[in-house]
């Protein structure tokens, strides 16, 4: 046995545990393998133009560019909205709130993070799209902007609570040392605490990005579901990878090139999210050392 597979001696019960571990391993592996295998036909028939093609016409051509651009735009918007708000909240919670209030804020964040996507979708359909439509005098409130705003609200608790963890993990001694030099609390927070927790905050934002990219239901309901390569106008309808999958999975279920194309989209999304999440965890781990 090499070092990688060194296992203690197994009793019968141990074999059951090992089997369960293989079920887990199998599920995770199956996810990746199926995505790859089922994407092969579409990549073979479309090649690179699967990612660069602008037109998605079932039966003729499958170009994923509109969805890829849409996902990037919506995620970018969400991060743009969420960053200042989440960081302000994290800074205030970590540096200024007494411990009992801090725990309450964290509890509220955990509850908020648990609100189902469909509820956010319902709220988005009923209020946000109409609000955006009226405020900006648009014909249709289902836009990238609306989806970005809704996603920002959805990932806010994740980003806030994880960045707050990073800020809070900075040792108390550093704060005292800085304050004994006559720095104000805010100066201490900005010049000592923030730089030291930066990797953790980057990690928090990356995990938020990963979540935003994968959100299906809420985005699907407010993004307008229109396949086209967006220009620089954020106030038009569009499509993201998950919303496309959500819209078309039912009709393409299980077979045909259309299905393969959807799996190709899924693979693309999976790779991006996996890389972002993996690096997010690396950053957070570095912060905790």
């Amino acid at each position, binding site marked *: 046995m090499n070092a*990688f*597979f*060194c*296992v203690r001696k197994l*009793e019968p*019960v*141990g074999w*059951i*545990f090992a*089997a*369960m*571990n293989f*079920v*887990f391993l199998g599920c*995770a592996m*199956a996810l990746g393998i*199926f*995505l790859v295998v089922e994407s092969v036909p579409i990549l073979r028939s479309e090649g690179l133009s699967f990612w660069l093609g602008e037109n998605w016409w079932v039966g003729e051509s499958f170009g994923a560019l509109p969805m890829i651009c849409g996902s990037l735009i919506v995620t970018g918007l969400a991060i743009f909205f969420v960053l200042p*708000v989440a960081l*302000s909240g994290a800074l*205030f919670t970590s540096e*200024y709130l007494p411990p009992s209030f801090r725990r309450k*804020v964290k509890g509220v964040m*955990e*509850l*908020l993070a648990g*609100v*189902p*996507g*469909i*509820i956010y*979708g*319902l709220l988005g*359909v009923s209020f946000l799209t109409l609000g955006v439509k009226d405020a900006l005098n648009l014909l249709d409130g289902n836009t990238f902007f609306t989806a970005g705003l809704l996603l920002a609200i959805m990932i*806010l608790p994740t980003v806030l609570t994880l960045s707050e963890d990073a800020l809070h993990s900075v040792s108390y001694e550093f704060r005292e040392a800085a304050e004994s030099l006559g720095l*104000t*609390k*805010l100066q201490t927070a900005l010049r000592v605490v923030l730089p030291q927790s930066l990797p953790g905050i980057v990690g928090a934002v990356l*995990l938020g990005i990963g*979540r935003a990219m*994968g*959100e*299906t*239901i809420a985005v699907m*309901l407010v993004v307008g579901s229109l396949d086209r390569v967006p220009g620089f106008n954020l106030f038009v309808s569009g499509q993201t990878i*998950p919303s496309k*999958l959500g819209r078309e*999975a*039912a009709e393409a*279920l*299980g077979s045909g090139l259309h299905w393969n194309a959807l*799996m190709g989209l*899924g693979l693309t*999304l*999976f790779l991006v*999210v*996996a890389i972002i*999440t*993996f690096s997010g*965890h690396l950053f957070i781990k570095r912060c905790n050392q």
Partner: protein
Amino acid sequence: MNAVTAEKMVLAFIGCITFLIVALLFTILGIMFLKGLPAMHGGFLFEESSDFGRAGGILYQLVGTLILMGVAVLWSLPVALGSVLFQTEYLNTGKLKTFLTQLTYILNATPTILFGLVGYLLFGVYLETGVSWVTGSLILAVMILPTLQVSIREAVEALPEKYREAGMSLGLSRPTQIWRIILPQSLYGIVTGVLLGLARAAGETAAIMFTATTFSGIQFPQSFSDPVPTLQTHILVLAQEGANPESIAQAWGAGLVLLGLVFLMTLMAWAFRTRMVMESEL
């Protein structure tokens, strides 16, 4: 004095933002109650929906959601428990452990709709369960696996090494040690994990909307290959009938019930977590 004034202004500003963020939860709750309560007539929870969801109650939707989340946990718990115990109690090397932990994290972050896509192929097509509640619960089981694993692993790893050493010094075999020491001591982690897993399964729509559910026609599944109606997909369909006020009203009612279900699970998980933590500190 100028710097102090500036600092106070910044402080007031970020304080207000924090207050607004916290208020967000209560705004959402408030809206849900305001919009949802009118739909909650006497038998809302105990009547069938009728007229394509525009009238009646949500009995079978609620039942469908409960079936999916309950069965999903039944599938998921043994796998989560077994894999965590294997990783913590039997695996010696760090490399494989780190790899498996990373796998849990990646599975946790995977967009849920991908579980639907791949799960349909794996279960629906290859296990021939089709579009059914069995497929849906299996998909949800894989989806909530990381939630259960993380919670159980935290509890098991928080056990002080002295417990294991005490067990070893008494000559207990490893299975006895797990059964008599590790499982009882990490019970709160298992229960918290189960509750959080239930909450996560209850809130999920994307993974089950084309693999396990139907909008109407089915009341209670008669066989393994029947789809079920669920609260989540019920809301999804009704929400897209924006022009119809009755549909939207029903959607708010169903939404309130769903949110209540999810929050109930989360709050129960907290209660369990704090109670067990307090007991372990005694």
